[in-house]
């Protein structure tokens, strides 16, 4: 028995599939989480790209980041719950695998920005253009997160090609 078979055979996995409203409940939670996560990230990225330069970058980031983490917590909890209902199918689903890869890339991009690019923020905090590295990270972030959403939605329309 694989870990995926075990997971979807647990009483929680069965409940996700068979209870009347648990699956839709986690779907709703997932959508709310996506709105918070990608919304707050996109607003920060747009500031970095050069919009609303009157807003200090540090203040923008400080306001957005708690909502980003709350959104991340919501999508993680709801996503793992939805996964546990159909772990065997999802694990071999091409769009799901692409989605996980894209999330990893988006995370690496965010880490790179936070630990390298953001250090010099005092030099470009307000009323000036961000450095090219910051703008590139921000554009990449938006592209990656939109791709994550696309891949997630396409899970329903994709398979492993197995019978």
């Amino acid at each position, binding site marked *: 028995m694989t870990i995926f078979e075990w997971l979807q055979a647990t009483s929680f996995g069965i409940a996700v599939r*068979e209870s*009347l409203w648990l699956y839709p409940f986690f779907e709703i939670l997932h959508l709310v989480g996506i709105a918070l996560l990608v919304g707050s990230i996109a607003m920060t990225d747009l500031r970095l790209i050069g919009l609303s330069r009157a807003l200090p970058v540090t203040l923008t980031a400080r306001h957005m980041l708690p909502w980003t983490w709350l959104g991340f917590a919501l999508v993680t909890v709801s996503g793992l719950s939805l996964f546990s209902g159909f772990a065997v199918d999802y694990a071999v689903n091409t769009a799901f695998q692409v989605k996980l890869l894209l999330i990893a890339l988006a995370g690496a991009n965010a880490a790179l920005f936070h630990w390298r690019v953001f250090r010099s923020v005092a030099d470009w905090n307000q009323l000036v253009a961000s450095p090219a590295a910051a703008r590139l990270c921000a554009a990449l972030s938006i592209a990656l997160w939109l791709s994550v959403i696309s891949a997630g939605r396409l899970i*329903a329309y994709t398979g492993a090609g197995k019978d």
Partner: protein
Amino acid sequence: MKTVLATLATLLLLVTAQSHGHHSTSNFDFEKEVAVSGTVTYMSFTNPHSFIDIDVIDKAGQKSSWKVFATSRVVLQRYGWTPESVKAGDAISVTGHPDKTKPREMYLTKIVFANGKTWLRSSIDN
């Protein structure tokens, strides 16, 4: 830059996409109908969709396994289905739209339950 990346990612996804829909019905040919009778081996009465596995014996005596997809448990229960409506071991007859590529999969439109009752898929339900 971002537009190019987003377009590339979307194209990649579309190219790798295959027709085994998880809860989409676009893989079924709604112009065609197929009907089989057989014995239920498994009923998945679940969200976001349900399915019934059926063993069908053809005229030559050959056994084949069919997979019949239906809508969500929430919607089926609204139509009066219960966990007792279809069970392993039941003899049932089903009509549905065949999968475009998989010869023994269909999307349920009509079922005659083991107790003789007939259920027709509502036109409002996809």
